[in-house]
């Protein structure tokens, strides 16, 4: 078993690393959603409700993506050592299910980023025309590409709005959030460029590193918040 696990890590491909990255993302998303949910429970703030819904969707989306990248590859490498005799049957199912899972995950991510962008209101529309221009980035090749593209636009919009908030208040946690969201967007963009090359290209490594930095940046301001266990209030007026 140790040899199998060791081989699994030695022959780990970038998909597995990316899958691990998405699992880290889902953990961070879960932390944020727990704090936001407690906040909504205590204050009944619509802003915190939107954050909760957004991060529920993002957590599920990241988890499904990470799971889809890691789990089939783990089983595939395991089956190469003839531990089970279901290799061919499994491969057939996994190819079909991987696409489906990735589309479901992308849908969750799209919804999450949409609610997050919605939560910012329309600050940038009053101050700049750059955010609406971001919608021009949309390129569509397949269902997954469409969903990923729209997610990317919402992510750009969210990071742009966060930048505006930072410029207004000059508070460091907002800067971390901006850097986090913009790094995730940059990582996704670099990943698209990396699709022109097969295997583990330098662009793919850069994409993974930039996304990792993005998740770390997102987690930095959140890590200082402990999950607050206050009394549930009902002050909706």
């Amino acid at each position: 078993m140790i040899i199998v696990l060791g081989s699994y890590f030695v022959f780990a491909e970038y998909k597995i690393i990316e899958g691990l990255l998405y699992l880290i993302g889902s953990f961070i998303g879960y932390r944020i959603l727990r704090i936001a949910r407690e906040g909504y429970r205590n204050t009944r703030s619509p802003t915190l409700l939107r954050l909760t819904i957004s991060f529920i969707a993002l957590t599920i989306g990241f988890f499904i993506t990470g799971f889809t990248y890691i789990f089939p590859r783990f089983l595939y490498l395991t089956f190469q050592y003839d531990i089970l005799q279901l290799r061919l049957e499994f491969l057939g199912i996994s190819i079909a299910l991987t696409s489906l899972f990735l589309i479901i995950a992308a849908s969750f991510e799209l919804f999450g980023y949409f609610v997050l962008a919605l939560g910012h209101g329309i600050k940038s529309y009053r101050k700049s025309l750059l955010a609406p221009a971001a919608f021009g980035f949309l390129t569509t090749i397949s269902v997954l590409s469409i969903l990923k593209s729209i997610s990317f636009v919402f992510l750009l919009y969210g990071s742009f709005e966060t930048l505006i908030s930072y410029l207004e208040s000059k508070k460091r946690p907002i800067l971390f959030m901006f850097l986090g969201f913009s790094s995730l967007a940059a990582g996704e963009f670099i990943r698209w460029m990396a699709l022109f090359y097969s295997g583990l290209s330098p662009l793919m490594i850069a994409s993974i590193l930039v996304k990792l930095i993005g998740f770390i940046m997102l987690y930095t301001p959140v890590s200082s918040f402990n999950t607050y266990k206050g009394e549930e209030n009902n002050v909706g007026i």
Partner: protein
Amino acid sequence: MSVYRTQVKIVADVLTSINDGNEGESGLGITRIIQKANLSYARATKIITRLVDSGLIEQVTIDNNQRYILSHKGIEYLRSHSDFADFAESFGMKL
């Protein structure tokens, strides 16, 4: 340009007014709440009624005057509001 206040912010402003203006445990009258929280009379009475119903403030009668004091639940609410306002702000949002 005037800054838009959300309902949650208005509630927090009312509670803060009562908390800050509660001199010697005698509570705060509605006129002072209106002034401090910058609300109309109609809006203030509606909000205060809801806050009393939800147990965040308590109504006391002193010398035939209706006055309001913050309850323990109200203090807890203000504390959590402050914490989560910081949390929402780190996303560039307001409560």
